[in-house]
């Protein structure tokens, strides 16, 4: 290896070295591996700024809220005490793609981070179908700027406390503020601003229409009343934005802002494994290519390998450090294994994954990255070899049994079951309670009924539910009922009227008697 071939020397990074690395990595990434990315915008920040970025959940600018302050304080505290290290980077799904790099990183780490964030995550944001359909990378920064401006204007006009209370309520329902099936409309800050005024008037008018019919109710026969909403609604925030009877126009706008931001982050929540796996797979591949071409030293590649193995370290389930499956580990193991199955398939692979065994690996990983989310990715591509490598096993905790049962391990019998259950573990609609707007009593007390469809008798966390239903009441401002249904039978109900919450539990016998 001739010394002159090196991109840069020493372990301290310089701006010139970063540029040189970016150029080399870009050459390999787009030329050899067809990674298609948004333009990169690399920003060098200090540890303090990284903590700032953490607490605004990775948005480059954010509106003000105490919960971000809480996040910041807790990060700061844990960082100072040495409980956590800060991430080397943070990347934002925007166009240009903004990547924050910590100034503390060594040159090798910066190279790793550039490969990981600026080419791995970046190409994922641009290529994956969820991001393509659900988020508009070129508009997000402007939209968040608009949101920040709008919210601080509201704070001036209507008081910080009012806005804060509203945001609390919206945040509580944020996970239920996404459209799971419909394609959302792209957002643009200019358009939002322009149309916001019209919309305020229009929305209010629509709401008024809905409730204007009320005085007539005495004269109308009951059957003629259409059910409202006609179909159950999955997007609670959308429903409140459009239909809550007493919200002010500005309150509707804030509900909308939180909903839009929730929607923007929704794909990220669905692709943790894939996104991190993809980025990790590429930083590994790209760094090794740099080394093979003699562009970085042996020392650098060793330093890189050490960081890389830290990143993909998976504590076992009985380790004190265990906190769930490490998305980097699982994702990286799967993408690497896809490559192996393509290049060097075994008999087992041909049996389990016949579609990809022996195919072109680059085509296959691109296809996987573009067309799957965590759940379907695992269901489709988790190979027996990865299950064996991570020694995955599946357990069943049934409250009707006195012990936890091991239902599958890494053997011929178990592969399929482990694969399915692991996929389920990343299915958001199974991991988060399914709560929809069921009915509004247009004729009666205007109360709102939400319905929780239980699966496998898994109940809601009661303490939290009691709090959240108050937030729902805050938005709806009339009585709110929440019914938990298991196989069309009511198991538990929550009622919230003017800030008081009653919980009724119905065990099997009782419902039998009454029904």
């Amino acid at each position, binding site marked *: 290896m001739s010394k002159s071939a090196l991109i840069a020397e020493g372990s301290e990074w310089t701006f010139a070295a970063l540029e040189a690395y970016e150029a080399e990595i*870009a050459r390999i990434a787009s030329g050899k591996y067809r990674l298609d990315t948004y333009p990169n915008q690399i920003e060098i920040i200090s540890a*303090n*700024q990284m903590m700032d970025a953490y607490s605004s959940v990775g948005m480059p600018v954010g509106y003000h809220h105490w919960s971000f302050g809480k996040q910041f304080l807790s990060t700061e505290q844990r960082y100072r005490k040495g409980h956590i290290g800060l991430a080397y980077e943070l990347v934002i799904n925007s166009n240009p793609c903004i990547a924050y790099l910590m100034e503390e990183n060594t040159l090798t780490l910066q190279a790793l981070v550039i490969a990981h964030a600026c080419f791995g995550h970046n190409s994922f944001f641009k290529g994956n179908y969820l991001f393509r359909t659900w988020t508009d990378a070129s508009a997000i920064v402007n939209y968040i700027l608009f949101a920040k401006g709008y919210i601080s204007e509201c704070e001036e006009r209507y008081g910080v406390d009012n806005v804060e209370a509203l945001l609390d309520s919206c945040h509580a329902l944020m996970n239920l503020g996404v459209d799971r099936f419909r394609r959302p409309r792209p957002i643009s800050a200019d358009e939002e601003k322009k149309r916001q005024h019209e919309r305020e008037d229009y929305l209010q008018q629509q709401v008024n229409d809905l409730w204007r019919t009320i005085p007539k109710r005495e004269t109308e026969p009951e059957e003629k009343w259409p059910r409202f909403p006609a179909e159950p609604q999955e997007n609670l925030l959308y429903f409140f934005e459009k239909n809550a009877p007493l919200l002010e126009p500005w309150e509707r706008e804030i509900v909308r802002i939180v909903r839009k931001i929730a929607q923007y982050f929704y794909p990220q929540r669905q692709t943790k494994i894939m996104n991190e796996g993809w980025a990790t797979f590429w930083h590994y591949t790209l760094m090794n290519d740099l080394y093979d071409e003699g562009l970085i030293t042996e020392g650098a590649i060793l330093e890189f390998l050490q960081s890389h193995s830290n990143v993909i370290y998976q504590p076992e389930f009985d380790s004190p450090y265990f906190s769930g499956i490490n998305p980097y580990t699982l994702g990286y193991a799967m993408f690497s294994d896809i490559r192996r199955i393509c290049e060097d398939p075994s008999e087992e692979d041909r049996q389990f994954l016949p579609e990809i065994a022996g195919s072109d690996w680059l085509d296959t990983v691109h296809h996987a990255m573009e067309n799957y989310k965590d759940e379907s990715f695992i269901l489709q591509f988790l190979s027996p070899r990865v299950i064996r490598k991570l020694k995955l096993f599946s*357990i069943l905790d049934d409250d009707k049994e006195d012990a936890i049962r091991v239902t599958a391990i890494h*053997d011929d019998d178990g592969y399929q079951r482990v694969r399915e259950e692991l996929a389920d573990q990343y299915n958001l609609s199974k991991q988060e309670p399914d*709560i929809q707007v069921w009915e509004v009593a247009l004729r009666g007390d205007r109360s709102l009924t939400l319905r929780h469809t239980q699966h496998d008798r898994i109940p809601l*966390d*009661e303490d939290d539910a009691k709090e959240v239903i108050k937030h729902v009441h805050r938005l709806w401002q009339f009585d709110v009922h929440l019914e938990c249904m298991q196989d069309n039978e009511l198991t538990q109900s929550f009622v919230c009227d003017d800030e008081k919450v009653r919980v009724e539990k119905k065990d099997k016998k009782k419902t039998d008697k009454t029904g």
Partner: protein
Amino acid sequence: MAFLIIDRRQQGKQKSAVNRQRFLKRFRKHIKDAVADAVSKRSITDMDRGEEISIPRKDISEPVFRQGRGGRQHRVLPGNKEFVKGDRIKRPSGGGGGAGGQASNSGEGMDEFVFELNQQEFLDFVFEDLELPNLVRKQLKDTDSYKLVKGGYTRDGIPARLNVVQSLRGAQARRIALGGAIRRDMKILAEELESIEGDSEFEDRRREITVELDRLRRRLNHIPFLDDFDLRYNNIIRQPTPTTSAVMFCLMDVSGSMTQDIKDLAKRFFILLHLFLKRHYEKTDVVFIRHHTKADEVDEEEFFYSRETGGTVVSSALELMQQVVRERYPSDSWNIYAAQASDGENWHDDSPRCRDLLVNDLLPLVQYYAYVEINSGNEQELWHTYDEIPEKFADCFAMRKVSEASDIFPVFRDLFERKSK
């Protein structure tokens, strides 16, 4: 491929500052309790720093609808060692790990949310809503309430304030600016003239140039050396100086009956008071008076750390205070405050004298007089005597009893609580 590297390190260090303040505001009740707790636990030399605050996690949680425990829950875990299909595992007791799904992620770990208040924030909380009572604007001489300071330059003013350097600098700049074009033209013409020097063929042109040069020279001379426009005057602005001035007398008993513990409590009280004044009333004077049988005015260092001791004559301190007031702090231009700390024991004939001194001489002069009696038993002589101070001074005289360290902060707050007007 287009890309950009930006160095952001120099900007926006405190993006989260507002959010942090919002957080502190929202949980001020919790934080205040924790702060009060911290103040009473700290050693007296250690008041002036930040504090670690913890808040019960459930009070600051952000609830969402999530799945609870129960039902049939599947889970896939890594790192199997000995299990085979069909094995039964005893449920782990308590809340720890196990099959809680997401439930265990948020519930795990600390029950308290812990974070650090910095020194500024800490003291803000300590002294929140406190004030010096009855602070009034004392009439000072007019000349004292304004200070004349230089404030840049203006275009108009009186000749005495003319700033020659600035004016000439401006004039020169103007001359250069206005004459630049003319000079350039003259230079070009002069060069041309030189190039055709002595050539009879260009006689006409030469004459033409000479005329033109003359005309330009005249124009140049017409640019005034100093124009009205150039004149700059020193600007003097009147800056108001604070017109409420206050002095705090700290009177501490260091007699032999004051045990080390009691002295420690007294010092704690005065340290709080001193911090409070330093922080909120920058312009406040503090006079430290220490007494046993004889009173001395001492400096801060000696007040807090000296070990001198003796018998007890409380009136000596009051007399000294009266003397200092007379000499240096006339009550028509100063707000006078005093805080006295003692164990309440006094030379037995001296207490009535103290009361008389207070009622006749001192209380009419002061805005507020606070007496703190520190002992663990019953009220002592001085307390009973002070109890006889007439009602009409209720507004400017207060006394409280302290028996242990944890009383100090509540008593301090009580004495200096902001009264709603």
